[in-house]
């Protein structure tokens, strides 16, 4: 599935929830169901800066594709980073770096995706793109 298709799927899912509370609950479920994150990877070098809670993103290369492990000490943030990591996982660095889709625009996620540039979701996206760009270079 392409990045765009994954975004479209999540968008449809999120639209099913009538209010922020249910959307947050969905993110909490995503967090609880996400694959386990090895505690030893909770290192400063994998920390996403600019989040109110602590968020970690670890890139792994599997053949040609990138895969992202993610974690957070806050549940809703963990749900959000799980969702973002799954969108960009199993894609090539080129596909990730060149993707111009604006998640902040696409997803209606209440205050956590406010269009401010200084928010956590923006930092998560920036981190993923930087990993991809560094790999290309």
């Amino acid at each position: 599935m392409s990045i765009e298709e994954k975004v479209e799927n999540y968008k449809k899912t999120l639209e099913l929830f009538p209010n922020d509370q249910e959307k947050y609950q969905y993110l909490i479920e995503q967090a609880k169901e996400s694959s386990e994150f090895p505690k030893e990877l909770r290192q400063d070098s994998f920390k996403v800066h600019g989040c109110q809670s602590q968020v970690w993103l670890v890139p792994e290369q599997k053949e040609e594709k990138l895969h992202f492990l993610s974690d957070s000490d806050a549940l809703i943030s963990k749900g959000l980073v799980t969702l973002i990591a799954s969108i960009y996982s199993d894609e090539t660095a080129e596909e990730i770096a060149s993707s111009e889709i604006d998640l902040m625009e696409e997803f209606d996620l209440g205050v956590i995706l406010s269009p401010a540039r200084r928010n956590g979701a923006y930092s998560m996206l920036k981190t993923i793109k930087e990993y991809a760009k560094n790999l290309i270079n």
Partner: protein
Amino acid sequence: MKSFEDIKSDFPIFKREVNGKPLTYLDSGATSQKPQIVLDKMNEIYTVSNANVHRGTYVLSAETTHAYEGVRNKCKDFINAYESDEIIFAKGSTEGFNFLANSISKKFMEPGDEILVTEIEHHANIIPWQMVAQENDLEVKYIKVNEDFTLNLDDLSEKLNSKTKVVSIVGESNLSGLLPDINEITTMVREKSDSLLIIDGAQLVPHRKIDVQALGIDFLVFSGHKMLGPTGIGVVWGRKELLEKMDPVYGGGDMIEEVYYDKATWAPVPHKFEAGTPPYVEAIGLGSAIDYLTELDMENVQNHSDELREYGKTIFDDIDKVNVIHSSAEKAGCTFGMYVDNVHATDLSLMLDTHGVAVRSGHHCVQPFHRKLGIDATIRATAYIYNDKNDLDVFKNALIESIKMLS
């Protein structure tokens, strides 16, 4: 005193809903809401008499200048300063501290001198001192906080010496509500040093009756937006004899007496500290906020805060998993910093928002203190004159429900 319902109805923001629920605003520690008279006053200035202050010899400018300078007098009465010239307008407390740190360090300090602040200071009362300390080879020392969140005055006493040139202390903690005993601190500082004594009034001045003469301090800093006024305006009060010795930090228009190509002389206090066009509309808005608080009477404002704090203590202390950062002191500000076992503060504030409850989450600009407590982030509920017991009940119930969802 006005009834609570009348007070709340003076604040137009409470007519709105958030996420389909009535707004329960418990983040006045970050900024307060504004009564209609403040909004009307600022609108009136822009609509009817806007003109730059101190500049024009025409009616509009005379009116704004008169209104602007009149606010100095209102501030003087509000904190019982000796005279209105001691009131310096700044953007807010943060700019006030930056000004004080820069001006004081140049005038009254030498390399090796020491600055004493406490472990629970807001970053605004830490960073400016760290910056001037690095520049001028000064040392910033921290007065310890006891396990019950009170200040360790023995530690203060031990750290005071002939090198101490500045003691700068929070008047009301923005996390625990602690109200340090300023009189006791003043006595100690005067006995053991010739240090200047600064009080951070950002949380204190909005909530309690302050008398700088009775406190015997040298400087007080506070922000307009936390006391019903607009953003962009704050006050530095200082003793006139000190202000007269100090040099300006910002240069520009309006702060000069004579300007030549190679030198300039300064206007008298307070104008030498106010370079450029001041935020005069904001200052006039602050004047209306002071009028509003004065009419309520700060004694009543203080009693309301004390009553709500007492009530909050009784209802928050017995919630499962919730830890409230109280000082053991009998009196404190109506501020409830709390953390919940195994639940992140950010998750909580997002969930509370869905109930229409606005509280702050994060480190509230007191990162070192959070680090000392070994916690990353807290949520903080702060109440003001437009909050009542019902708001605290709504918060409590939303908190219990949110914890359930997040556990």
